[in-house]
């Protein structure tokens, strides 16, 4: 454990210093290969190899290739043919595209409406529990531990549309239903979102909880001196402290939900009648969903457009967070 103490004690200072430190050891001198090797130039390369190879083959090259392929027609057998903007045109005129965009945004919106307040309220309440916070948080986190595919398959059974389905049986006790859940164009998407929230909210709860607990006690003390009640402390002390974490999870959630695949793929396959067709499902279908071979050009063209959109979101996020660290 002593090794762990070291970075903590000195980390702040060295970290700051390290960034501006003039290089002494690692700088290669190109003119003299021997010196370069002795000074560790070679070992730098050796150590960088795993990263360079893995990123090169499985990240950088596919990214470049993705852009290239979006301007090509490929069927894996012949040589690829340049087709200009044809793939983009094909995707943009696909009658399913507006549906997929609408559905994806709808999913993101529902995921926010359901998935944003629930963990927040839960975390705030847990943070005020005096004993057994651990029990509460473990309970909240438990669904996250269930493998996502298992969770979807289990909920698919819960959502059985017959009167004997699990949810329909429960709702029958209070005189509701039966609903057809996943077989209903209007209920299918909310059903997906409820499961997705169940599966993911625990993680968000723990993140909020960690942030709430790190709110300095002095801030509450100060508020109390001003005569603040419990509600006002939550609203005017805790919430502003959570602002950063909230905004970040908010943006990350949007970025994540825009790429939703597992739920629509396993629950409904995009149905009924395209009610849960998402953009990622469209990409998958272009690439892998036709029995006569993938339309890789259309798949990459749509991917590239989605990526551009998400990159803009990420940049906004990056700007926002770096803005904070300066303030």
């Amino acid at each position: 454990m002593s090794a762990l103490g070291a970075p903590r004690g000195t980390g702040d200072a060295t970290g700051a210093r390290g960034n501006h430190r003039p290089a002494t050891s690692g700088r290669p001198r190109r003119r003299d290969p021997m010196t370069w090797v002795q000074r560790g130039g070679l070992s730098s390369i050796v150590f960088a190899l795993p990263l360079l190879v893995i990123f090169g083959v499985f990240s950088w090259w596919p990214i470049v290739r993705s852009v290239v392929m979006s301007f090509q027609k490929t069927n894996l057998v012949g040589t690829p043919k340049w087709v200009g903007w044809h793939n983009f045109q094909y995707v943009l005129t696909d009658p399913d595209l507006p549906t997929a965009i609408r559905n994806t945004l709808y999913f993101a919106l529902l995921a926010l409406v359901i998935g944003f307040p629930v963990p927040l309220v839960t975390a705030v309440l847990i943070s005020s529990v005096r004993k057994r916070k651990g029990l509460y948080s473990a309970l909240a986190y438990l669904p996250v531990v269930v493998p996502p595919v298992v969770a979807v398959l289990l909920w698919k059974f819960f959502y059985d549309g017959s009167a004997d389905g699990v949810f329909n049986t429960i709702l029958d006790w209070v005189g509701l239903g039966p609903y057809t859940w996943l077989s209903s164009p209007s209920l299918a998407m909310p059903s997906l979102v409820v499961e997705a929230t169940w599966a993911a909210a625990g993680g968000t709860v723990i993140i909020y909880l960690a942030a709430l607990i790190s709110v300095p006690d002095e801030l509450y003390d100060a508020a109390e001196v001003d005569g603040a009640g419990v509600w006002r402390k939550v609203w005017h002390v805790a919430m502003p402290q959570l602002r950063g974490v909230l905004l970040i999870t908010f943006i990350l959630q949007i970025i994540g939900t825009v790429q939703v695949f597992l739920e629509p793929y396993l629950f409904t396959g995009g149905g009924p009648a395209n009610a849960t067709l998402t953009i990622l499902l469209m990409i998958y279908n272009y690439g892998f969903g036709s029995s006569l071979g993938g339309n890789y050009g259309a798949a990459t063209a749509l991917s590239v457009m989605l990526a551009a959109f998400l990159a803009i979101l990420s940049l906004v996020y990056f700007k926002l967070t770096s803005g904070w660290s300066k303030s």
Partner: protein
Amino acid sequence: MKFSRRTTMAIAVVGALALGSTLGACSSDDSSSGDSGSTTLDPNTKVTLNVVGLLPGAKPEAQQALADEVADFQKENPNITVKTHDYEWKATTFAADLAGGTLPSVFEIPFTDAKTLIANAQIADMQAYLTQLAYASNFNKNLLQYGQGSDGHVYAIPAKSIYAIGLHYNRDLFTQAGLDPNKPPTTWEEVRTAAKAIAEKTGQAGFAQMSKDGTGGWQLTVDTYSRGGRMEDGKKATLTNDATKASLQFLKDLRWTDNSMGANFSYDWSGINQAFAAGKIGMYTSGQDVYTSLVQTNNINPKSYGLTMIPLSGGESGVLGGGTMAAVSSKASNNEKAAAVKWIDYHYLRKYTNEGAAKKNAEIQVASKQPVGTPELPIFTQQQYQQYQDWIKTYVNVPLDQMTTFTSKVFDAKLVNEPAIATQDVYKALDTAVQAVLTDKNANIDQLLTEANAKAQRAIDAAG
């Protein structure tokens, strides 16, 4: 591969002549005489041949029967080792398997896909190998043309499940609903009445329809044909025809007026089979030969099974027909192709043309309690098929007397091929309409079909 085609052809013809007589006479002889020339298998090489086997989840008895077949085949061809792989053709996974090179060397495809796969050079030219088979020239020409390339060569070989669509019904549910299981419905109106009775009396779905992964469009095409409509006219999509509208309206009435279609509206091919075998469905339409997989995979109770003709109405009405072809990966070596054609002969075709093979195959199936005699349409001539049925008569263990309303009429019906261009895309476009009608009370049929038609036309244009 290409430059040697002419030579291989020449040799193949010679080989076929040499082989023809032996094959016809005694099937177990061909391993000794058939291995000469470059398109035949070199007897000194060991070939491992990967082939498709049963559906995933097939019962142990079915697996036993297949294993017996493989053992027998290997005895006949000592230098070939056959490995079987579970396989279900699905529109949504096939392309990735093909592109990924993870399909077995011999695989099965629906009639409708062969032309495109040939054009994309994804399946092997089997002409030279096929001609080695005695019966190569006896194929039903209408079936064979599906697997021929623009060069006239045969790439994919008609192999099994040559079907006309039938109406499958659960006799037990019919009885429980007070209907006569020996007098199944003959018009769509009667189907509707029966479905309503079943739903009311038994609580199960009276009638169910596939709707997922292209099967919805496939079955809607079936319904359309039965009412005299067509989905394509040359290169023009004609999805907005009156027969299709009537078919959707029929589903809408059953679903929303009668509520006789149960609670599951996202069946695919295997899903609806499972539900039917479990007694949850009164009637559904699917290929006439589906009984085989209902036994092999779903443990259906034979007593409850009934098969009848799909109702036909209108002048141009017909029964949709289709089938399964065997194809060989274009990456297969010549030895593999030579071995493949032997397996295709042994596993799929020989039994129809050779009495000994027919009986032997039937014996193997019966020994493992597998269905023998499920009605199919002839791959060769109708006489040939009738002769085959005579050969296996004593082995037949499927309830043929519960299928007579189908088997007595199917040969008189007009068979209509599936839409020729961009078939799976047309089906997928129609899926949406079927799903919408089954799940949305306010679905607008005209609008749905107009949208589907636009998508289908787009796919047809892209394919052409």
